[in-house]
């Protein structure tokens, strides 16, 4: 049984349920890096851990809640966002973060994503995009790039994927960023910024997946190198140009940060005050 972590992790150790390590994630999966970054962000946020809540859905990323030592909820497939919204509305002083996968958030949870963005709920949604449904063996997801092979697209995927930043933008989000899991410093800063943003924050994290690599006959370390080296950081970019295409460079960066839109919780609080419910 794991009893302690290397000294470099002393600050995040109290925030990780180390009695449950090693994690169930595949060797080389970047979810472990996200675990480190999210807990680091909690430490650096200045918000006490008792005020942080994590909600995750079903899938590999969904297991994230089980490893973080804050109030953590591992709910049903696609429904992390409304559950998180419920917690936030009941206790608006809590910092509520959803960490879930591309299938969970953009497929079955797609409707909840766009409405939560529309209402501008003050929560952070970290969408870990591995382009596939990894946990269940490798089916296509709404972010699977055209042409790639999955268990449900064995001849090459004939669908076009979602452009998640564009979707979030159209729906009304306040903060939108996309990084790969290897752009750890930028990702950490984005999570911190999302915590501070009063409104709906969406951070898409591109994560190489062993199941995806296997289905597409790519060596996993090769896929990792592709993510690290073929991702280009761009600042002024049109949302339409953020599509992900197999073989082309991936555009990452911070794409939107609005501070002019009040969050749903702010507006509801105002309404309550006005009507007399304090």
């Amino acid at each position, binding site marked *: 049984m794991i009893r302690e972590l290397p000294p470099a992790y002393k600050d995040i150790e109290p925030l990780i*349920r180390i009695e*449950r390590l090693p994690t169930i994630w595949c060797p080389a999966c970047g979810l472990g890096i996200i675990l480190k970054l999210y807990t680091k962000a909690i430490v650096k946020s200045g918000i006490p*851990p*008792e*005020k942080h*809540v994590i*909600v995750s859905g079903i899938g590999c990323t969904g297991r994230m*809640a*089980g490893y973080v*030592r*804050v*109030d*953590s*909820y*591992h*709910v*049903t497939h696609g*429904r992390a966002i*409304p*559950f*998180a*919204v*419920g*917690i*936030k*509305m*009941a*206790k608006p*002083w*809590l910092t509520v973060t959803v960490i879930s996968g591309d299938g969970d958030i953009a497929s079955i949870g797609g*409707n*909840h994503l766009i*409405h939560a963005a529309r209402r501008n709920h003050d929560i952070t949604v970290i969408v870990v995009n591995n382009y596939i449904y990894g946990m269940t063996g490798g089916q296509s997801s709404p972010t699977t790039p055209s042409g790639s092979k999955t268990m449900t697209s064995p001849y090459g995927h004939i669908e076009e994927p979602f452009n998640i930043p564009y979707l979030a933008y159209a729906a009304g989000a306040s903060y939108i960023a996309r990084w790969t899991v290897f752009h750890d410093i930028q990702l950490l800063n984005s999570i911190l910024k999302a915590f501070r943003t009063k409104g709906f924050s969406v951070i898409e994290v591109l994560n190489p997946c062993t199941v995806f690599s296997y289905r597409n006959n790519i060596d996993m370390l090769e896929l990792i190198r592709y993510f690290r080296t073929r991702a280009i950081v761009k600042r002024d970019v049109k949302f339409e140009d953020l599509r992900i295409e197999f073989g082309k460079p991936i555009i990452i960066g911070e794409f939107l940060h609005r501070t002019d839109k009040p969050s749903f919780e702010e507006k*509801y609080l105002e*309404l*309550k005050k*006005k*009507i*007399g*419910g*304090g």
Partner: protein
Amino acid sequence: MSKLLKPGTYFLEGNIACAEAALLAGCRFYAGYPITPSSELMHHMARRMPEVGGVFIQGEDEIASIMMALGGSAAGLKSMTATSGPGLSLMQESIGLAAMLELPVVIVDIQRAGPSTGIPTLMGQGDIMQAKWGSHGDYEVVAYLPSTPQELFDITIEAFNTAEEYRVPVIVLADKIIGQMYGRIKVPDHSEIKLIERKKPAIPPEKYMEYLPYDSRELIPPFAAAGDGYRIHMTGLMHDDRGYPNLSQEASWKLVTRLVRKIRENARKIAKWGEHWIDDAEYLIVAYGSVSGPVRYAIKKAREEGYKVGLFRPLTAWPFPGWRIKELDNSGVIKKFIVIEVNMGQIYHVVREYVRNAEVIHVPGAPGYLPEPQRILSYIKKFCR
């Protein structure tokens, strides 16, 4: 408290009475989605929640609504949603989650004629089985069967208490007639309204690591809300006493048996029913909800003509007071149980489960339509000989 309905007598629509009862019971989180014939309840909540300092939100669909209510409950608020048959069907997976996470929540189902879109504006009694078996796997819920607006009012308060006490989803199976008719509602003195809160952990957050959140020797674990500092973990996966995912046979047995025993071992405390004209009854009609109205009228008329017929009126569908049915059956006095419901046979099967001696007759009804008193009288005359 001054913002709540003052003690007295009112003339209210059932849906409104239900909403006011919820507020009196301490409900401060409502998430819902419009569906005939429950929408008035939601409209009322939209207006009242900001007044009492609670949370109101219209979700994008029923699934969002129930999940938001569960989030509110996880954060410690008494939470509620209201819907009808089709919405309850959509909510089933989330009801299973509520049972698994042991989150108190009240779901009001103003039943309408089904299946599917059915007749949205007419009553139904088709969700009885759905309330118990709607989600996958083994779990127990509590489901109430009010039959008048006053009963809907009283039962809603009780529903919150039951949800809090047993950490269980509670479904109030009303129907369109009870929900949308006006009735006299007596609101008691607020001091007379007994409220139950969920059990809190006995130990402070710092001692959490030594504590077993779900000590399976206790049927109902204490509840730590989000933001209370306990840093709990809740998962829909099979879990052990620590709340962590544990897929072993031992964990599976311990958890699932506890989830069902919570209710089954307290069935006699939770179940409610009414017995009318039982003393000399040789024939017993089993009816519930708005059907008990015309049934009562028919029984009155039948008794005037000498028929020894009584009424057994379950007020909880689940747990069903089967032991009382069995007792009445074993007494040898009751010759026939006549189950009259507006569906193709739901409580009928449950009654059959408990009756060995008497005959059980099934009187189904076209969804949407209350059986008329005259027709019920003719059944009594036909069967009670």
